[in-house]
Structures are given as structure tokens and as C-alpha cells.
């Protein structure tokens, strides 16, 4: 047990959980998980579990002040049992920073002009933190915004990359991120190829950075395909039902 600290993260081209360097954890995405919210989503990347509820857009409170454009307010909270060390009640500075980073990632993708004078509240709850929380939260939040029917320029997907033991690792776990030399999180609108958020920590040479970004962009594209599939399944089901409906009506007439 005590040796785990010193053991290498990588052996024979594999990581401790058996993944290849450029492989995601098992990804599960779903929408419509909170009945009271206008839109909601749940994302699970093995031990990282995030739930997002979107409320509104609703009329902004007076104290916010007048604005022709709509607003997004983002609030991130980690459950007290989300981390190994029991967390605290109330928002910590880390959670406030996550909220601000996430707001930037989402704002660029949302058509704020489509809901003047109103605010959409995005509440993010990290049920379990197993690594890459910001990226998972951004992906889930964008899915929830789309589920809420809010007008967007494109979906947003995000993923993290860590550089550890000389290799670039996609979608790092907490263990891997704790021992990384450098890491970054990229949020992207994949269809129009626009970066909405980029956070990096640690030293990167420009060639390393380019390589890491390319890896992250590839990861975002993979997630985008999955997210679209989730949303499209719902749309396709609705389309079939409406067609059946139309046929029934035609028969009755």
C-alpha cells in the first residue's frame, strides 16, 4: 500500500486503470434527470459523477440591473462526500473559481440575445470527484442547456489532458492529475471549432502545448459525437411520434 505513491503511473503503454494513454474512461451521458428543472443532464466518467440542473431563463431579479441581453449564472458545488477528504458545507473558493471558469465556457456558446432581460441559472453538483471535474461539468452543463431548449450557437464539450511521466494522458483521474507535470482543460464548440475555455497549469513548451491541444480537441470531438447522439435520440423519437400522430389524424379525417 505504502508503495503506491512510488509506483509508476504508466506501465507497458497502459495506465493504472488499464486504459491506453489517449482513451477516455467509460462515459455515460443522459438528459432529463431532474423533473423540476427546465433542463438537466447527468454525466458519469467512471468515478466522476456530475449532475446539472438548468432553471429558466426567467425574469432577472431587479438587483441585477437592466440588460438587453440574457445572463447565465453558474453555481458549482461539490457534495461533501465527493472527495476523499470529507468536504465542507457552503461554497469554497475552489468552487467559486470552478463556477467562473464554467460560466466562461458556456457563455460564448449561448445565444444570450435570445432571452433579453432574463437569467438562466445553471446549477452544477459534483456528486463524486474522480478527476477532470471542470471538463465533465462543462460537457454536462452544455447538454443541460440544450435540454432546456436554450438557443445555442453550438454544443460545448470539454476534456482534460495531463502530462505525466513524459506522456500525454487524456481524461486524467485524480491520481494522475495529482502527479502531473502540467495539465490543461479545453472547452470547445466542435462544429464551429471555437475554443470557449482553456485553462492550463504547469510548464508547457510550445510544441508540447500544440500536441496536448490536438489531443484535447480530438477528445472533445469524441464527446461531441456522443452528446449529439443522446440529444438526437430524443429528437428522433419525437419525430416518429409526430409522424404517427399526423397519420392518425389523417385517417380520422
Amino acid at each position: 500500500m505504502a508503495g503506491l505513491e512510488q509506483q509508476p503511473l504508466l506501465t507497458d503503454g497502459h495506465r493504472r486503470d488499464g486504459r491506453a494513454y489517449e482513451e477516455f474512461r467509460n462515459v455515460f451521458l443522459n438528459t432529463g434527470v431532474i423533473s423540476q428543472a427546465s433542463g438537466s443532464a447527468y454525466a458519469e466518467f467512471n468515478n466522476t459523477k456530475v449532475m446539472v440542473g438548468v432553471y429558466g431563463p426567467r425574469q432577472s431579479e431587479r438587483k441585477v440591473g437592466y440588460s438587453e441581453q440574457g445572463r447565465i449564472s453558474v453555481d458549482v458545488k461539490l457534495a461533501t462526500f465527493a472527495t476523499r477528504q470529507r468536504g465542507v458545507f457552503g461554497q469554497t473558493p475552489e468552487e467559486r473559481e470552478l463556477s467562473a471558469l464554467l460560466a466562461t465556457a458556456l457563455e460564448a456558446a449561448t445565444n444570450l440575445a435570445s432571452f433579453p432581460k432574463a437569467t438562466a441559472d445553471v446549477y452544477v453538483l459534483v456528486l463524486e470527484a474522480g478527476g477532470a471535474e471542470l471538463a465533465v461539468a462543462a460537457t454536462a452543463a452544455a447538454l443541460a442547456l440544450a435540454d432546456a431548449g436554450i438557443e445555442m450557437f453550438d454544443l460545448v464539450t470539454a476534456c482534460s489532458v495531463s502530462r505525466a511521466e513524459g506522456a500525454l494522458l487524456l481524461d486524467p483521474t485524480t491520481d494522475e492529475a495529482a502527479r502531473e507535470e502540467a495539465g490543461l482543460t479545453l472547452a470547445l464548440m466542435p462544429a464551429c471549432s471555437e475554443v470557449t475555455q482553456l485553462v492550463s497549469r504547469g510548464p508547457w513548451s510550445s510544441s508540447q502545448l500544440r500536441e496536448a491541444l490536438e489531443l484535447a480537441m480530438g477528445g472533445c470531438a469524441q464527446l461531441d459525437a456522443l452528446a449529439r447522439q443522446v440529444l438526437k435520440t430524443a429528437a428522433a423519437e419525437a419525430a416518429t411520434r409526430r409522424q404517427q400522430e399526423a397519420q392518425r389524424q389523417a385517417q380520422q379525417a
Partner: protein
Amino acid sequence: MRGVCVGDVIEPQALDGVLRGHGTLLRGNSLVASRCGLVQRWNQLVLVDPLAGGYVAAVGHVVVGRIVQVEPTRWLVDIRSKTLAALPLSTAGGAMHKAAEGAQSSRSVLAEGDLITAEVQAVRADGHIQLHVRDAVASKLPPGMLVEVPAALVRPARKHVLHWREAGLRAVFGCNGAVWIGQEGGFSSLGAEQLRAASELANMVQAMASRGEMLVPARMHMNV
């Protein structure tokens, strides 16, 4: 009908011959969906009909709403839209003139929490919604319950109110996805049969909504 999601290309070449409708935007030359839904084409107009999301008010819609605030000149009504809707005292018919004269307070006509049925009279570009009722007193709904479903499942139709006079039951299918089921006006007491029929109707509406089926008031009539 084609299902699309945010960011999907609807028309790769949309320079001419295509009118950009709701839920779409231009990216370069191509027409792209800005929300999830079904593509609808009306001649040149291309739009995306949303699957979910808040109610988008349009003139003429019959809605069921809840009074959330009483102001000196108007009531503010939650109709599940992005902004609260306003019901001005002046549009509220005869009873309100009395209120304006100070004979009655506006709260005695409609108080916070009351459910009403109304028609959307105007929607301004900045999101302001104005409601209209023929008679504020009559617009207040009698004892009953509210079932909430996605707004997209109730389409504007000729008929939004169903009556089962013999059962003493009435249902109002608001275009905002608020379905009210309750007592027919003029019925004084509530009976077991009435309540059972209402709860069955409510369960049916909820079941249909959870399967994503459209709620067409004219057809609900046949089902009950």
C-alpha cells in the same frame, strides 16, 4: 420531419431561397440549428420546433397561469415563460372598474396563488407579455388541480377547454403546458365520482406527457 440538435447543419447552402426561422442561425453559408428539435419547412421558411424548454408566448394562445404578484395597476402572472406576464386591470372587464374606483381591492378579485385562464394579447420584442381576459372574476379557476407538462406538447387549437357537464368536470389545456382539471363552474359540491374521474384524467395526461405524446384536447374527449 427531421430531428436535429444544437449546431447541426440543416441547409449547407442557404444563401437564397431559404428564410431563417426560429431556432436557426447562419454560420457562413449554411443554416444551422440553434436548439434541439424538429425541422419544419413552410415553403421557404425553415425553423426548428423545440422539443423542450420554456414556453414561448404568442398572440392568441390560451394559457393557464398563476398570479404571483398584485400591483396597483396590474397582476403579474407566471405562465411558465421566460418573463412574467402582465394582466392589466384595464383589460380585466367590469369587475375591475369597480376596483379602480376603490369599491373593491384588486386582491379581492385575484390574489397571489390564484390560477387563471387567459389569452395572450401582445408579446413585445423585449419579452414583455400582456394577457387578456374577458372577465377577471370568471377567469379565476374553481377548485381543481394543475398538471404540468412540456409546453411543446400542447398546440394552439380551436378547442382548449373540455366540459363533462354530467360529471361536473372541466379541463383547460393551456398552450404553456399547464393543464388544469377541476370542477365545472356552477357545480356547488365535490363528489367522489368527480374526483376519481379527475385523478384518472390527470394520470392519463401525465402518462401521455412522459411518453412525449401530443395532448390534443379534442381527442382527449374521446378517451375519457
